[in-house]
C-alpha cells in the first residue's frame, strides 16, 4: 500500500513537470513541424542560468526571472539559426542535434563535468497520503499545472494562440487567412523555450545538473508525444504514464534506474507498432505516419 501511494504521488509530481516540457516539444512539432532535438537544452540551460545568476546576485527571486528570460531568448536564437532549413526534416534534425551537442559541450567546458546543486526556494517537506514530499517538488508541480492552464487559455483566447492552432491544423488555409506563418513559428519556439525553462528553474534544484542530460529530456518528450498522439493537447496526459513507468521500474528492482530509459522506449516502440497515431491522436492511415 505504501509503495502504491509513493508511486502515485511521485509520478503525479514528475508527470506534471514532464507535462509542460513535452507540451512545448509537441507544440513545436505540431505547429512549426520542427522536431526540435535541442528541446532538452532549453530545460538544461535554464538550470545552469539560474545557478549562474544565483552565484552573481545571491538571490533566487531575481535569478529565476532572469533565467527564464535568458532561456526564452536562447529559444528565439535557436529558431533564427535553423529557420532556413526547417523545410527538410533531415536537416532540421541534424541542425538541432548539432546545436544541442555544441551547447552541451560549451557547458562542459565552462562548468566542467561536476554536478551543481541549485538552492531550493522553500526548504522542508510535508506528508501527502503518508508519503514524504519535498515542498519544492510540490511547488514546482503546482506551478507547472498553473502554467499549463494558463497556456490552454492562451491557446484558446488570444490571437497568437488561435493563429498557432490554425497553422497546426492547415497551413495553407492559415496562409490564406493572412497569418504570418514565420512569425507564428518563431513565437511557437519561443513559447516552448519558456515552458521548458519554467519546468527547469523549479524542478532542477531537485535533480543533479550535468551537461549530458539534454538528450534524455528530449527523448522523454518525444516518447510522451508519440504515446499521447500528435497534435492533441489531451495526449499530454501520457506524461503521467511515462512518469509512472519510470518510478515503477526504479522501485521494483535494483538496476531500475539504469533500465528505466529502456522501459519507456520499449513502450514507445510497441505503441508505434500497434497504434501509430498514439492513444489520443487521430487515425492517420495504415502505413503512413504523418511526417
Amino acid at each position: 500500500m505504501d509503495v502504491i501511494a509513493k508511486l502515485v504521488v511521485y509520478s503525479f509530481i514528475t508527470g506534471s513537470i514532464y507535462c509542460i516540457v513535452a507540451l512545448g516539444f509537441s507544440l513545436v512539432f505540431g505547429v512549426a513541424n520542427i522536431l526540435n532535438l535541442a528541446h532538452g537544452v532549453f530545460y538544461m540551460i535554464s538550470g545552469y542560468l539560474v545557478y549562474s545568476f544565483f552565484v552573481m546576485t545571491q538571490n533566487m527571486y531575481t535569478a529565476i526571472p532572469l533565467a527564464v528570460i535568458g532561456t526564452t531568448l536562447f529559444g528565439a536564437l535557436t529558431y533564427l539559426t535553423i529557420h532556413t532549413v526547417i523545410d527538410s526534416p533531415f536537416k532540421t534534425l541534424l541542425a538541432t542535434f548539432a546545436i544541442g551537442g555544441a551547447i552541451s559541450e560549451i557547458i562542459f567546458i565552462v562548468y566542467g563535468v561536476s554536478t551543481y546543486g541549485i538552492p531550493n526556494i522553500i526548504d522542508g517537506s510535508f506528508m501527502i497520503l503518508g508519503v514524504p514530499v519535498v515542498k519544492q517538488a510540490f511547488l514546482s508541480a503546482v506551478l507547472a499545472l498553473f502554467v499549463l492552464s494558463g497556456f490552454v487559455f492562451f491557446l484558446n483566447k488570444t490571437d497568437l494562440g488561435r493563429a498557432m492552432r490554425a497553422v497546426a491544423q492547415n497551413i495553407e488555409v492559415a496562409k490564406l487567412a493572412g497569418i504570418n506563418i514565420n512569425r507564428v513559428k518563431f513565437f511557437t519556439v519561443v513559447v516552448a523555450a519558456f515552458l521548458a525553462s519554467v519546468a527547469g528553474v523549479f524542478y532542477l534544484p531537485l535533480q543533479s545538473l550535468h551537461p549530458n542530460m539534454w538528450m534524455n529530456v528530449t527523448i522523454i518528450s518525444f516518447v510522451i508525444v508519440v504515446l499521447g498522439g500528435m497534435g492533441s493537447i489531451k495526449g499530454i496526459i501520457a506524461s503521467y504514464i511515462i512518469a509512472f513507468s519510470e518510478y515503477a521500474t526504479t522501485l521494483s528492482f535494483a538496476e531500475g534506474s539504469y533500465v528505466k530509459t529502456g522501459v519507456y522506449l520499449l513502450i514507445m516502440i510497441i505503441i508505434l507498432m500497434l497504434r501509430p497515431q498514439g492513444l489520443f491522436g487521430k487515425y492517420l492511415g495504415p502505413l503512413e505516419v504523418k511526417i
Partner: protein
Amino acid sequence: MKEAKYLGSPSEILKKIPKTWIFLLAIQICIPFVTSNPYYLKIFVIFYIYAIFAMSWDLIGGYLGIVSFGHALFFGASAYTTAILNVKLNWPPLLNFPLSILCSLVIALIVARPTMRLKGHYLALVTFAFPAITTNIFFAFPDFFGADIGITGLSRLSGSRTIDFYVAFVAVWSIYFILRKIINSDTGLILRAIQCNEAAPISCGIDIAKVKLKMFIISGMFAGVAGFLYAHVIRIVEPTNLEVHMAMQAVVMCIIGGVGTLSGAIFGAVVVTIVNEFLRVIEQYRILIFYLLILMIVLFLPKGLKWYFDSLCSTVGRGLKRVIS
C-alpha cells in the same frame, strides 16, 4: 537461363577500369612500403573502417532516404560479439568474424520490423531508441558487458600493422565495389525511386517493403564488418561505440561528402579522420568543433564539401587545359 555476358579477356577488362582508379588503388597499395610507422598505418586503417561505416549508412540514408541515427547499433553489436567471444572464450578473430556479422544481421532484422513502417521524423527518432535500449541492457548486466568501461584486451587482428592495413584495404574496396554494383543495377534504380516517391514503384508492382528490408540488412551487415575491424584494431569496445555520437560520425561523413554518393562517403571519411587527428592537439574543444562543423555544413553548404571540391577541381582543370593548349 540467362547467358553470362562476355566481359572480354583480362587485359580488355583492365582497360575498362578508369585510369584514376588504378592510380588511386596503386598509391594505397604502396603505402606500407613507403612508411612502416605503426601510427600512420593505424590512421589509415581507422580511415578505412570509417569509410566502410559511412558507406553502409549511405546505402540506406542517402539512397533509400531512411535517415537512421541508430546505425552504430550494428557496428557496436558486431564489435561486442567479437569482443565477448574473444576475451571470454579466447576464440580467434577469424572464427568470430561470421558470428559477429550474423549478430548484426539478426539485430538489423529486429530493428527493421518496427521502423520500416514509419517515415520522416518518427523514423529518425525511433532509430534513436534502439541503441539507448541496448546500452540500458549493457548497464543492467555489468559483469557480462563491462558497463561503462566496456571490454578491453582483445587480441590483434593479425600480427603486424601491415597485414591489418591490407585486410582493411581489401575490405573497404570490395565493399565499395559491391555497393556500387548494387546501386548501378536495377535495384539501385528502385532505391532512388522509393526515395523520390514511394507510390511510383508500388504502382509498378514492386514490393518495396521487401527491397527496404533487404537493403537495411545489407547495410547492417557492412556496418558489422566495420565494427568487427574496429574492435580488433582499437582493441577496446565501449558502450560509446554504439551510441548516437558514433552514428552521427557516419551521418557527418556522408554530409561532408554529399549524401547519396558512395565516393562522397569516402571523401567524408578522409576529412573526418584528418580533422580528428589534427584536433587531438586541442582535445578539449574537439567535439565542440565537430558539432559546429555539422551545423555550418547543414546551414551553409547543403551539397556537401565534395561537390564544391569537385567543381573547384574541374575549374582548375579547365584552366590548366586552356593554359596548355
